[in-house]
């Protein structure tokens, strides 16, 4: 059942995305953007980045909105990024946690963490506690 539906739906999706791309190209009149020129030395990679960024912008925006940012502000934040920055962000944003930290639950014992961080602070590996004195100045 899923399979029979999937094919026409994906064709429709591809058609929509392609026509959106066409519309975008049209809207930019016929100027070649600086980004295209900048990346012209590695065309294949650039095409992929551009395509990814095109597909990822709504996804990244949704993630930002889920972080408590308004849709307009989320759109504004993404608009300021270059295509490769958006692609990079989208690649990492998948890893963002849904909720509380699993690491915290795993460790649990706060006292143990406190002692470990205290020792690492004294050794100079970390700088968590202001009362650990680091420099005689």
């Amino acid at each position, binding site marked *: 059942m899923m399979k029979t539906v999937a094919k026409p739906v994906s064709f429709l999706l591809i058609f929509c995305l392609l026509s959106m791309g066409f519309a975008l190209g049209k809207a930019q009149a*016929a100027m*070649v953007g600086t980004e*295209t*020129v900048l990346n012209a030395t590695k065309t294949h990679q650039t095409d992929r980045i551009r395509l990814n960024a095109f597909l990822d912008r709504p996804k990244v925006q949704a993630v930002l909105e889920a972080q408590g940012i308004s849709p307009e502000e989320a759109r504004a934040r993404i608009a300021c990024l270059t295509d490769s*920055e958006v692609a990079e962000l989208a690649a990492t944003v998948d890893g963002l946690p849904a909720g509380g930290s699993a690491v915290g639950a*795993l*460790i649990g014992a706060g006292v143990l963490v406190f002692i470990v961080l205290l020792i690492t602070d004294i*050794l100079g590996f970390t700088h968590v506690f202001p009362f650990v004195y*680091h420099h005689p100045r």
Partner: protein
Amino acid sequence: MSSRSCIITPGNFRATRRQGASFLSVTILFILLAGCGGVQLTQIQKEMAGIPSRAELKNVPLYPQEADQCGAASLAMVLHWSGIPATPESLVPEVYSPSLKGSLQPAIIGAARRSGRVAYHIYGTEGLLREVGGGHPVIVLLNLGLSWHPKWHYAVVTGYDLSENFVVVHSGKIKPEYFPFRVFENTWARSNRWGLLVLRPADLPVTADEKSYLAAVLGLEKARQWREAVNGYQTALRKWPGSLTALMGLGNSLYALGDLPQAEKAFRDAAHLYPTSGPAFNNLAQVLWKEGRREEALAAAEKAVALGGPLSATFQKTLEEIQSGNP
């Protein structure tokens, strides 16, 4: 304990997730590493010629941070240094992600651009020292805790002293903090030494690399800061005369500002220096057409079409538009 904890960052996040695994092994590991120390400064000094032995920037303000607002506070400090009267409160709406209780790096970069400043990445200790030594404060991302128990924190490096072994950091407190170099290195290494310059577009990074700098100026175009983008491309052209990307970016930004004669000049320069660049002729044609110089526009568009290449469909379209109608 967590009042200064700040952000989760996409770049570092993966590392955080992988942690957790074995607490015991980590504990043993740090005990083993305890004897190793960090990077030796004397060694760095030997390797890096031309770095001043000390630096202290005087014009970077200190903004004590509100809880979780180290991103906004750090950006406000460097923006203020660069001549923009920003405050942490004014930047919170642009950088903060409420559910993360912190600010993502791309939000900091975007907010710098929205203020008309070039956001330029630096990586590594040498880059940091060269920039601070050259008079540029650097926003750094630190993990003050451990990889499996992170305590992410943005701060601004405003000085260092290689003979006394310390780094001066504006870290959200009312006074500057003096980090022993080893502590700074240990906490900065956990973000893969992520650092960011926020500069006026007329001010070139000491460590500027052509392509990275042009990508940073392109960010100003993305933020629709055309005037500042023009300044940035002009700065790039002083350093790298005849850079095709810089000339094209200059022309595109001037075109966006509606300054057709200057845009035309930039594209003419590009077309003259790069007679095989289709985009230069295409954009020149577009500008000439807007200026009402149809014959010249047609000639440039035909030249672009003749050159062809991966953008030939765009060139063809320019030509057809000029042939068929009014600007």
